[in-house]
């Protein structure tokens, strides 16, 4: 039985429209702004520099949360987090290549 449409919750695809400020990202990840700044400086996440303020895409939320989990759960430092994320990206790229074959 499929639930009827009229009682369903609707929401937008977060990554498509979201533009986050440093403050937004910091609040949504429950971590202080300095920590996010360090991630940007280490290249873990990327900020879009506009006139006077950093902005982040919606995809940065998932990536920051992932980085925080790795940092906390695996007790690794910032450089370790950056390396782990790069290797995870590479792994995903290889898996995608496999799909297209």
């Amino acid at each position: 039985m499929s639930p009827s449409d009229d009682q369903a919750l609707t929401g937008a695809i977060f990554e498509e429209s979201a533009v986050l400020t440093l403050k937004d990202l910091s609040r949504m990840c429950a971590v202080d702004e300095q920590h996010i700044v360090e991630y940007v400086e280490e290249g873990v996440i990327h900020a879009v520099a506009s006139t006077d303020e950093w902005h982040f895409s919606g995809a940065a939320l998932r990536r920051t949360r992932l980085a925080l989990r790795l940092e906390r759960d695996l007790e690794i430092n910032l450089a370790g987090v950056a390396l782990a994320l790069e290797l995870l990206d590479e792994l995903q790229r290889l898996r995608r290549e496999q799909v297209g074959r």
Partner: protein
Amino acid sequence: MEFKDYYKVMGVARDATEAQIKQAYRKLARKYHPDVSKEKDAEARFKEVGEAYEVLKSAEKRAAYDQLGQGPRPGEDFRPPPDWGTGFEFSGAGGRDSAYSDFFESLFGAQGRGESRGTRGAFHPGRGEDHHAKVLLDLDATLKGGTRQLSLRVPDIDADGRLVSKERVLNVQVPKGILAGQSIRLAGQGAPAHGEGTPGDLFIEVEFQPHPWYRVDGRDLYLELPVAPWEAALGATVKTPTPTATVELKIPSGAHAGSKLRLKGRGIPASPPGDFYVILQIALPPANDDTAKAAYAAMAAALPFNPRASFGV
């Protein structure tokens, strides 16, 4: 309640040093971390290891736990001693989002859980926390859109102030064209507000169940399409399923196994839409009767063909 042998979970001796425990934890955490592990039951194992470490890394909790001795044999029923909980004060900063076992909670209760990480909630005192969940959807949900009943595990605080994991069932309209790794944001469906503020949001991250025919790569779809040798060699127009409809696909003559044909814009209907790729496979008709055998023999006689020519043999 089941007694948990935390030393066994961590694979360390009961007299292991702090350094040995830390080392064991890191090794197990890397092995079972759900974000990096492909092990079966990674998530359950990781939680178990995290709980064991939470106890053994803290001198206070470990001393308290050791007082229980070996406990009953693992799996046997366990009750904390009646005078349990007197004389210990638990402090600690761990931070976690998921519930520990009843065994842990009965020993260390809510205080033992440690504070949530850092400054959670300190920025917008009145605003409820956002919740995050992950769901596995059928590919049709993004191809056609539609409502799905989703069953989520969400953190909750029970009457005794303990962090528990609760099931929540929601009917959610899946936005057409959502891609794996993207999230549906449901405003106001997160944790309730603290006092005057607004409730948090619920983020539902989407992954797809494997589809029997289509493989997914971002917004593109791939289909392995079997064709007969003569369809590939001579060219043909064949029926091909796509997410929206069955289409007539033109196979160019001289196609071979692995040839890739693109149907632009017929992938996942995101913006911009993905493409639909057909990868040809050559299917051989079975030679299981005289007519078929004669046809293969005639082809062998008529065609000077060495499929291994590139090896020089």
